[in-house]
């Protein structure tokens, strides 16, 4: 049996809540399973434990390749898989991958688009609740938000979360406590934090969308079911999974390929949380 490994250094709790990874994995398997390849997903506590897993998988020849996610600038995992001779595909920006094949989403571009969407509705003071700023994709999104805000001469307030519901609540409280200017619209880097944000906004006695508009970065069933239903930057996450799986199968044929696979364009799905 040929196996591909995916290690995630986040708490089982956060992964369990996050629809992004469930749909990503579903897409991966739609391509890998018919090709006779299995996908092993393993949760670990931190990055050191993640590196240990690659070492032991490689030593015991338990996987034929790996998928790297949540890259940081100058990520040492890239050098590690090279040293181990493990074929690898990076889900992230080509700048983080040092030539490894990547499946690339234009985080900065879509972040600009989200800002443009809100600016077009007359918002001038925006909030951005990001994921962990150590991640390269978070920095790219924040960079995109800042660039668009500067171009349009808007005001930006920022806070950092860790993709969990609780961090969405706390970051939102931080933004709402800002004086003199409170944001009239907030972009959240995932759906779960946006749901936490909705709770906080309600606790502050504010209404969505009358007082505050909310946009979630990933779309999900929970976003759609929220009251009010959340407008979202919708990515075809399962398709990103399928592309990644295809990239992995390509590395089995040619391990030296330096291909960049571009993810399908994201788009805003407008629901009831924005005006």
């Amino acid at each position, binding site marked *: *049996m040929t*196996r591909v*490994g995916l290690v995630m250094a986040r*708490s*089982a*709790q956060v*992964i*369990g*809540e996050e*629809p992004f990874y*469930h*749909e990503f*994995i*579903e897409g991966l*398997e*739609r391509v890998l*399973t*018919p090709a*006779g390849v*299995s*996908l*092993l*997903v*393993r*949760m670990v506590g931190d990055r050191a434990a993640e590196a240990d*897993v690659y070492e*032991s*998988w490689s030593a*015991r020849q*338990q*996987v034929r390749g790996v998928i790297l996610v949540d890259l940081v600038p100058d990520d040492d995992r890239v050098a590690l898989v090279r040293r181990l001779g493990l074929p690898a595909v990076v889900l992230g920006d080509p700048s983080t991958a040092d030539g490894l094949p990547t499946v690339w989403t234009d985080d900065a571009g879509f972040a600009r688009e989200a800002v443009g969407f809100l600016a077009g509705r007359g918002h001038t003071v925006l909030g951005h609740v990001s994921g962990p700023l150590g991640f390269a994709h978070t920095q790219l999104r924040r960079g995109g938000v800042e660039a668009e805000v500067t171009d349009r001469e808007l005001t930006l307030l920022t806070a950092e979360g860790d993709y969990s519901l609780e961090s969405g609540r706390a970051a939102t409280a931080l933004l709402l406590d800002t004086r003199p200017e409170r944001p009239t619209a907030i972009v959240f880097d995932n759906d779960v934090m946006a749901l936490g944000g909705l709770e906080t906004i309600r606790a502050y006695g504010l209404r969505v969308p009358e007082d505050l508009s909310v946009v979630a970065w990933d*779309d999900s*069933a*929970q976003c*759609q*079911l929220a009251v009010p*239903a959340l407008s979202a930057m*919708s990515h*075809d996450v*399962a398709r990103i999974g399928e592309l990644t799986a295809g990239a992995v199968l390509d590395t089995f044929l040619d391990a030296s390929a330096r291909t960049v696979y571009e993810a399908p364009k994201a788009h805003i*799905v407008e629901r009831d949380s924005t005006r």
Partner: protein
Amino acid sequence: MARRETPAAGPGSRALIVDVVRSAVTISRGELADLTGLTQPSISNIVRDLIAEGIIHEIGSTGAGQGRPRKLIAINPANRFGVGFHMGPDTLTSVAIDLTGGVIGREVVPRPPDGSWSPERLAERFHDFTECLDLPADRIEGLAVVAPASVPVEADLRAELTDRIGVPVLVENDAAAAALGEFWSRRVSREQAFGCVYLSAEVGAGFVFGGALFRGAGSGAGDLGHVSIHYDGRPCPCGSLGCVGQYASTTASVDAAREDPELRARLPLDGSASSAYDSIARAAVNGDPAAYTVLDQAAEYLGMAATSMANLLDLGRLVLTGPGVALAGSIYARRLRSHLARTAHSRQRHTLTVELSAQPRDAAGIGAAALVVQAAVAPGHGGLALQGAAVPAAVVPAAVAPGHGSER
């Protein structure tokens, strides 16, 4: 409705304590006494044993100020593990969870070329999976194998598999397992009359009452797909007419969508039923009116059957899960909520919450692993004794005794 357990410290007290700690997340011994009706000394003894076994740990104190601080206890997640296998038509999903229900590993493998999962192959799968996760053999509490109600796992598989892997083996249907998984990982308290609707190529349900999975006479409870919603409706292979599975399963929705020529031209519906269904679901939530109508209609049918089920059992909390609600769960949840709010008999007396699963695609595999975890740390729910790993005599035969275990 709240029901009190008997306060005597019998063999069920340990399960009761684990269950209350699990649903409370963190709790003090004093609060445990209040909630369980057990005496302080019995609680101290049981908690001491649970700490020694690594099932519970102390995680700090609270109540600074007046009197001495109370120590808080919680389930110790990372000390022991349960493994679940969910058999699908083409694949087998393996899941490992910690004691709180957190997934620590999963893998989907294709069905073997000749189509059969022999005990030998399942044992190989178990060893391979647990080795890739570096799970120490002595911390694995067991394996549960679950499959759709229409293709039950063979009865003699259990004993043979137990012999081969050296840990107890349980067998269950997928919807029932999913219900127990949601009960465990959502920290539902045992006072709740809890139900789960499992939407896939079949329609299933599972129930957890008083903390125990309701199995019926032969692990067949919860066959929601064969609740009829139309007395002279579509024929079902089961022999009845109008079974809701013929209207609301994911395959029924794919069939309905394929009959619409415009939808067929617009969406990729010619591949596998599961990818066709996901295309419909994605289009439906992104504003395609025809795709939305197909699923909303299915949800309306499902709402009819779910209302009958909720009325029959007077449920207090219902979770929607299974691959059918992964992308378009909001359509089903909204329909069920409005249907139940309009028609459920209990609507004047108590609330009936309808929620969406956080991990609908893996719910059956996670649930399988949760069956193992519950049997190991809160035994006494359905005669599934797991103690004495590697001792086949400790494992009851596949034909599970009806009822809920002797001590309850």
